[in-house]
């Protein structure tokens, strides 16, 4: 993370004075230390009417069909260009709910902190959580903090679960997908994974590759409002990248996806990094991206609306649904040959030469 960002954040939300610099086992004990820690830090910054009840759970009313989702965040390193584990944990769950066609409302927030984690870093994560929650317009209404012994965690793990109300126009289900539907991706692929990988490997490129972590709920809801059941399917291709999502859907529907490699948007530095590291961008993680399968009739308008949104500037049609290879994803290579895009086996491992 750049110094500039750090400074900006600290100015926005100055860290309160704590009488401790590092988090210890006592801060997760449930006793006085936990109380002080939560009162002076967490509750203040995340403040809202539901959280302020300080009950064991949040009590609220929801109207209509609901979507519910959970995810755990164990990323290393926790700070990376474009974000940190805090905004990632909020955006990830917000996006999962959005992909169901729902407007995310309330989130829970669980921390598992490794003993020795500094308050300074914790504060930075917390500020990002707050900013991400504000941006997505969701409330964090309940939470939990545990501390584990040094060596039994990796600085900080976060779990978020969230609940949202399905938009009345939404009808998102893979069963709706038919031959002739169009596949659209909302932006450049593989940015997040490569940002993390280059940091882990200590590889520097001419321009810093930023993670694409972002909340997609406003973008998606706007599209659902406008295009309703013309949108058949939505999914954010996080781990495993766009190839994994499309394989899952091809298998479930026994339809096939026919993609064209030269239509798939990839940032040039990201593509260069993938070449160097021996990775295929189709399998690299994204955190602020979604795939949409839409009716052919609305595809052009949908794309135009999406491109006018800040989360969809680089959106593109990348292929179509066919019946030629049931259960498979086929890609026309840049030079005109065809190949299968298969599931990824385990982790993508860098190659020898």
């Amino acid at each position, binding site marked *: 993370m750049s110094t500039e960002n750090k400074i900006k954040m600290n100015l926005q939300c100055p860290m309160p004075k704590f009488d401790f610099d590092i988090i210890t086992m006592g801060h997760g004990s449930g006793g006085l230390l936990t109380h002080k820690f939560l009162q002076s830090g967490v509750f203040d910054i995340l403040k809202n009417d539901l959280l302020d009840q300080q009950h064991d759970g949040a009590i609220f009313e929801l109207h209509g069909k609901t979507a519910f989702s959970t995810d755990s965040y164990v990323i290393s390193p926790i700070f990376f260009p474009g974000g940190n584990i805090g905004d990632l944990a909020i955006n990830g769950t917000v996006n999962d709910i959005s992909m169901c066609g729902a407007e995310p409302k309330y989130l829970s927030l669980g921390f598992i902190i490794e003993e020795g984690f500094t308050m300074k870093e914790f504060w930075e994560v917390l500020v990002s959580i707050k900013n991400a929650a504000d941006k997505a317009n969701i409330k964090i209404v309940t939470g939990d903090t545990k501390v584990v012994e040094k060596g039994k965690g990796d600085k900080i793990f976060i779990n978020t679960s969230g609940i949202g109300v399905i938009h009345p126009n939404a009808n998102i289900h893979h069963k709706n997908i038919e031959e002739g539907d169009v596949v659209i991706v909302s932006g450049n692929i593989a940015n997040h994974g490569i940002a993390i990988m280059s940091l882990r*490997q200590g*590889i520097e490129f001419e321009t810093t590759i930023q993670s694409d972590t972002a909340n997609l709920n406003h973008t998606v809801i706007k599209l659902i409002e406008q295009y309703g059941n013309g949108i058949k399917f939505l999914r954010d291709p996080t781990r495993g990248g766009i190839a994994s999502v499309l394989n899952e859907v091809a298998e479930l529907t026994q339809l096939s996806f026919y993609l064209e490699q030269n239509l798939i948007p990839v940032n*040039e530095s990201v*593509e*260069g990094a993938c*070449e160097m*590291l*021996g990775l295929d961008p189709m399998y690299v993680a994204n955190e602020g991206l979604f795939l949409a399968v839409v009716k052919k009739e609305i595809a052009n308008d949908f794309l135009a609306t999406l491109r006018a949104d800040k989360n969809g500037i680089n959106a593109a049609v990348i292929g179509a649904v066919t019946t030629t*290879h049931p259960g*498979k994803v*086929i*890609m*026309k*290579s*840049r*030079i*005109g*040959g*065809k*190949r*299968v*895009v*298969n599931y990824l*086996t*385990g982790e993508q*491992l*860098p*190659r*020898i*030469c």
Partner: protein
Amino acid sequence: MKFLTEYRDPELVTAYLDEIHHITTKPWTLMEICGGQTHSLVKNGILDMLPANITMVHGPGCPVCVTSVSVIDEAIYLSLQPNVILCSFGDMLRVPGSKKSLLEAKAEGADIRILYSPLEAVQLARQNPDKEIVFFAVGFETTAPANALSVVHADQLGVTNYSILASHVLVPPAMEAILSDDENKIDGFLAAGHVCTIMGIDEYYPIAEKYQCPMVVTGFEPVDLLQGILMAVTQLEKGEYKVENQYARSVQREGNKMAQETIQKVFAISDRVWRGIGNIPQSGYEVNDRYKAFNARVKFDIDIPFAEENKECISGEIMKGLKKPRQCPNFGIKCKPEHPLGAPMVSSEGACAAYYHYAGASEVAV
């Protein structure tokens, strides 16, 4: 991306394909040596675009695939020693040894790190003076200079807790082993561009002459491969057997002298067992006596029984070009990337993995 996009130009590809179709009159079997070339052929769908009477068979140029089970077992043994950090290129981790893979050893608690360069391992040794750092030095002539350099660096810096487990293999002896096989059916070779970048091309002249076999040093992008195929087929159609260099933007006849000197400084040529193929005399590098303090086999008393290859895996026949992955009865059934019988199914450059992941898009059997 300069030097990449030009070599993926669809118009050039079509032009080369047209020319190959135009000149091919007889059936020819070509072997591309390097696994990187195999993957590029399959991933770009080139195999389907070639004339039906040109058969591409896939050579042994996948360092992961040819590393013997015993060497993998040695690496696993070392990784499980207390106080040892074993560093490896990522590719090696999933390859099955006789009982398990390095990835499974890692899950059991072995400290195994994936690195991109052996020089990072020397750095790691300096940062952890109380640990023994072993680098699993596999690869062809391409990775040998950097691995040798790591030993030279460690020696110069006085780093004593660093050693390498060398399992280097050499291309020309393997080509000879393939050509002298009774069942050999290869008419021409696409030699591996990166290996020749280091070693130059002089070693290939006597082989081309002895076996009357054209050899075209070829790159890895679609246009490179098609140009290489065109050059090889042109020779075959004319009855010639020359050494030609398609990859001239990277390969010079004498190779990279400085890299060769570094290799010679640290390594000596030795016999090497190739997985699936067996022992090939004078086909590998081992750390020489001058640097034996950095040889993990000398430093550690590696006490493990000799391991047999998995007899169900036909990787030897595949790497000699005698069979195609789909001709293996276990392909995609008993042998899959998630539970491989042999290395070609797991390595990112393995022929079986290439077919498993990418092939099957066309109705043409490849």
